[in-house]
């Protein structure tokens, strides 16, 4: 139900983070990522942030050089997912301070940990930034 995958891809089409909630092989992932990045890059500011792809939808949002792409089932609330992306960015921002693409590249595992707290089984589980970051901050302090 809900979210099928979350991707962060830069303008050159390089994937910076990929979390899939349903299994796809490496080749399938590469093909999928190339296809949807092309679709989203071709769109301009005035158009919708939603794209229909095969039998599901992609909600995307661009922050500076990075595209956040979330693949969702057709019954999801697109605006809510759009804001979920923003919540994710705000959370990373709180942790990294003015988060940018490099932060994600150099601390990939932290970014994944944050996502692990927020989404399980393709469902949004936690939306309080305090609760999301607490385990990660604890981990940083004790170890």
């Amino acid at each position, binding site marked *: 139900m809900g979210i099928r995958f979350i991707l962060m891809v830069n303008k050159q089409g390089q994937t910076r983070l990929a979390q899939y909630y349903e299994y796809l092989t490496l080749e399938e992932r590469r093909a999928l990522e190339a296809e949807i990045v092309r679709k989203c890059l071709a769109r301009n500011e005035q158009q919708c942030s939603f794209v229909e792809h095969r039998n599901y939808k992609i909600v995307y949002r661009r922050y500076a050089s990075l595209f956040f792409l979330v693949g969702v089932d057709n019954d999801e609330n697109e605006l809510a997912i759009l804001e979920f992306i923003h919540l994710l960015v705000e959370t990373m921002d709180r942790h990294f301070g003015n988060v940018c693409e490099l932060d994600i590249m150099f601390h990939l*595992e932290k970014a994944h940990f944050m996502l692990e707290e927020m989404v399980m089984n393709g469902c949004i589980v936690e939306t309080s930034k305090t609760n999301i970051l607490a385990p990660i901050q604890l981990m940083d302090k004790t170890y």
Partner: protein
Amino acid sequence: MKEYIIRLVYVEMLGHDASFAYIHAVKMTHDDNLVLKRTGYLAVSLFLNDDHDPIILIVNTIQKDLKSDNYLVVCTALNAVCKLINDETVPAVLPQVVELLGHQKEAVRKKAIMVLHRFYQKSPSSVSHLVSNFRKRLCDNDPGVMGATLCPLFDLITIDVNTYKDLVVSFVSILKQVAERRLPKTYDYHQLPAPFIQIRLLKILALLGSGDKQSSEKMYMVVGDIFKKCDSTSNIGNAVLYECICCVSAIHPNPKLLEQAAQVISRFLKSDSHNLKYMGIDALGRLIKISPEIAEQHQLAVIDCLEDPDDTLKRKTFELLYKMTKSSNVEVIVDRMIDYMISLNDNHYKTYIASRCVELAEQFAPSNQWFIQTMNKVFEHAGDLVNVKVAHNLMKLIAEGFGEDDDTADSQLRSSAVESYLRIIGEPKLPSVFLQVICWVLGEYGTADGKYSASYITGKLCDVAEAYSNDETVKFAGQFSLRSSVHEVEA
């Protein structure tokens, strides 16, 4: 080692296989250091899927970690269970997970519930006796655990609505508390109280109230309140309002709520933001079933969206038009749809639109003439994408007439079909399915009204057979029809 494992995650992310190193990730999960352990689990869950063999190596470690004194280790293990356990390994960890549902730390309870959800998704029979746990956790003190429980409950209710009707009152009460800001401030997002939880609750209420007047009546007040209080200037506020509209259109109709919904839709459609227009069109489509007159009010806005260069918006608007079609407007709508279909490059979507056109034409055609012309257009431009059954239906229709015992009307129909096909047959590169229809019609009825001689028809059919000599089915159809018209000549 941690750095290397992370780099391997990168390698796979860029599309290259790193399976030679999976075992190292597995080994890292044994480490006592939490950061290494967690990174190990992360890598394993990114590399592997629940039916890969190395998973067996992990199960022991997971079992041990689930019993750890350190709740962070337990959480890490629960995360891994969610991604890696399949229906064979469920029994190995199930008892431990059930125990963790009562753990003192809310983070653990929250993840345990999601693990149970995952077990339910993978192997429902193994947890059917534990479903009552979801009900219990709904009343958990911690809002995070409650919020998480909504996910499995949504799935359960989708499958079996009636068992959960008794929870309507609980859900309404929870939604009321959330909307009245009784949750801790940390759940606020952009000044809205726990909007994602509100949205999920609204989805659940929509399921429970659908077709059930009694249950719906319990919901009217809280939904009405949300309509009034929700901030309409932020995206997330509009997301909640949109979900309210979805709920209102699913449950037993209430005129006041429908009125509020219509107002929100007006605002969405008038907005400059394409995202809001998209949501507005979608919401309009849902409301139309209950109050069809709402479509007329927004006709202009809908037409604007249709002309918009944004493809996503156009598609959404066509979906809306499909829902709005009646005999009075079918000609206009289907004509537009066909024009759009012609402009498409994406075959997957072209097929979809073509079949929608066919459906509407079959359902609402104002005249037989129009029907045949429309079907001709669809075949001409998307013939190879359309289901072959549609072609058979068309031929059947022409052969048997439209059911009214009016022989003159039927033969007029056939004549006009013959006329149009003789015109079209000259065009280059017609789709194979279409040609078969044409050949058959010409063969059967080409000479029926005496306007064309059998030899003329035969000549045309021979031309077709020559022009499309590569296409076996067309050749066959052509020859078959030739035979019929040759019989005419002989007769």
